[in-house]
């Protein structure tokens, strides 16, 4: 098993239960999509899987190593095999796209060349090539803040790939892209999965794309796993349950995003994350 989550729970502020008893596992080389309404806890799950956030209880096991217990060097060693694409990109805005991608090489570099910025020719060329693959070869020296949302997203993708990850955690990797580019990016990820045996866990609001590209669907609603099975098993009825259940639960807790739950199910469209809005 590449990745196992066992009984993972997470609460914010002792009130909001973002995740409750989430268990699933992902085999090596698998492409899994997590679907679910806004506020379901998808981003929180990704952040726990890559060690940015600690879970309150439960276990996260990557290639047999416990991430949730690891500290310091040990943790860093596990984190080095993960590549993450963030929903809000998390790029350094006033630095060039190339430098942002190069930053992903830092964990493998010694301190001195790292601090002096001596990345070497090979790494530079690789970063440039990756940016070329996501269609940004003419923006290498451009500062990130001058890019469009979709272009930023592609920089974030290139940065994650620069890690040569064994597992790629992608939080809405194509949400800001036009349909054609989105399709192309997913084809790129699929290619990496098939050729290099990359394991991919992707959050997505785009049902059609998730169904077309992934091997398995994971339905998350109100912080619980509501569906875990093949793409074909996600019938109309199952989808309705995933998107509606969280809506109801949220309505009870008086969350404003509740109403949009069903809209998402109906249109399969992307809506802004409450986390992003708050920032």
């Amino acid at each position: 098993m590449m990745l196992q989550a066992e009984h993972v729970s997470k609460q914010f502020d002792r009130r909001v239960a973002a995740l409750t008893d989430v268990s699933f596992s992902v085999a090596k080389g698998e492409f899994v999509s997590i679907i679910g309404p806004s506020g379901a806890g998808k981003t929180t799950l990704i952040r726990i899987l890559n060690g940015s956030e600690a879970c309150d209880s439960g276990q996260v096991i990557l290639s047999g190593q416990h991430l949730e217990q690891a500290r310091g060097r040990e943790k860093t060693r596990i984190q080095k095999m993960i590549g993450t694409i963030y929903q809000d990109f998390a790029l350094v805005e006033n630095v060039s796209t190339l430098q942002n991608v190069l930053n992903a090489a830092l964990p493998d570099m010694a301190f001195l060349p790292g601090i002096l910025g001596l990345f070497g020719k090979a790494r530079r060329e690789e970063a440039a090539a990756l940016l070329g693959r996501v269609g940004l070869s003419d923006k290498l020296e451009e500062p990130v803040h001058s890019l469009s949302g979709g272009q930023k997203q592609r920089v974030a993708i290139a940065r994650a790939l620069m890690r040569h990850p064994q597992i790629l955690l992608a939080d809405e990797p194509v949400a800001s892209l036009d349909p054609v580019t989105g399709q192309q990016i997913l084809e790129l990820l699929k290619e990496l999965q098939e050729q290099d045996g990359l394991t991919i866990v992707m959050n997505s609001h785009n049902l059609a794309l998730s169904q077309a590209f992934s091997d398995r669907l994971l339905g998350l609603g109100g912080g619980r796993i509501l569906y875990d099975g093949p793409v074909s098993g996600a019938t109309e009825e199952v989808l309705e349950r995933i998107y509606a259940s969280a809506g109801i639960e949220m309505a009870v807790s008086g969350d404003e995003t509740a109403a949009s739950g069903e809209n998402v199910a109906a249109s399969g469209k992307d809506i802004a994350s409450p986390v992003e809005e708050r920032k």
Partner: protein
Amino acid sequence: MKRKKTALLWLLLLLLFILAGRFTGCSLPLFWARRSHAADIFLRMIPPDWSYFPRILTPLWATVQMSVAGTVLGTFLALLAAPLCAANLFSPRPVRMVFRILIQVLRSFPTLILALAATFLFGLGCFAGTIAILIYTFAIMTRLCYEDIENASVRPYQALCAMGTPPGRAYFRAILPEIASSYLSNALYLLETNVRHSAILGYVGAGGIGLLLNEKISWKEYNRVGMILLALFLAVCLIELLSSRLVLLVKGERQISRTGKRILIGAFLILFLLSLAAVGKPDFSRTSFQTVRSMFSGLFWPDWSFFLQGGSGGLAWLLLETVCIAFVGTVLGAVISLPLAILGTGRLMPAPAALFFRLLTVAVRSIPFLIYGIIFIRISGPGAFTGVLTMAACSIGLLTKRFTEAIDSLDFRPWQALSAMGVSPLLRIRYAVLPQLLPALGSALLYRFDVNTREASVLGIVGAGGIGAPLVFAMNHFHWRQAGAITLGLILLVWLVDLLSAWIRGGKRR
């Protein structure tokens, strides 16, 4: 290619810093050996003489009045002059040029020098001080204001003009609303600066609490000096608190009701009127037509032989020393400010610690430069090194403030992303924090360097090197032609620094 250039630039800056440090006679060992003298005077100020407090109130109030009156009038006049300087409105080129040169000339002088000049025209007292603050505020505000206008969108203005609205009215209707918030927050910041500056105007006889301060220092009544400083600190705290609240309002980050707004405006009006009342009348009894005439003729027909005099002690040499003092002082100030700013941010520090360091910064800022000069002169003697130390101390306030703002607006998401990849903390600082901070730090430094070149001329009053001492000496001894030459040099210097910083800023944008 580009990286080599940046590396070269840093090296060049370092080299310049070392050269300027040597030129101004900076010596860390000397400072370290005599460090005890720094605390010396401060210790003697404790405990402050509490019984003296009531006697301070009147001059302190006069100081505040002077600065309020001067600031309000100056900012208001700036509002009228700014459109004449702006290139994108109705002002024809010759008018624009004349006004810009005038502003640039006025901008070259610190309040203290303006106040000294004003005492020759309007006699001793608050009137001269108010005029000095007015002119200082006017010059700076006009400059800031017309830069804002030139960055504002002129489309609504053009639309109004096309409808046949007179340009002046179109300016008030279409441009003003756009620059209003930046204008008001600049004005509030200047008000606070002016309160601190006007605290020393008494030194040249221009009224306010500076008279007392000067007197107590020369009589070595340090307990009373301590009391004055404490009162000043409280006043500055109060104004800072008030203006930070107002800035929030002005920037629209907080809302108040209509009546609330009216009450606020009313209160401000009353304060302004009260301030005007205290300014008093100019005292022309000792102003002779002769003085005024020779003063202006000195300005227009400067002493060219002095102007061109080379060698050490010559004008060029003094100006160079002034720039070096400003430069080294700014850098040293930044070195102290950065840790202060980090310690003072609520995002990184526990709240009580952050509050303590913020208060410390306000305290450092509220002490007039004169006090620093007097303290440092005991460490390093008269000369440029004292000037450097004083400049550094005076830069801390503004730099810390700007740095804190930069840290407050940091985006921590890339930091977390790098951390999740397993990048070590030092490398995270290098790649996720510094790139975000550097532009803000750079522009703060540049701005402060510009301010410091102008302010450096007041150092002459405490004998701390640079162009100030000869200027003050020449003015006090009615050597107007010499004063004219120095003035001209100063104007050119400030202009050069201005061009330099515009060039650097332009280069950074490219």
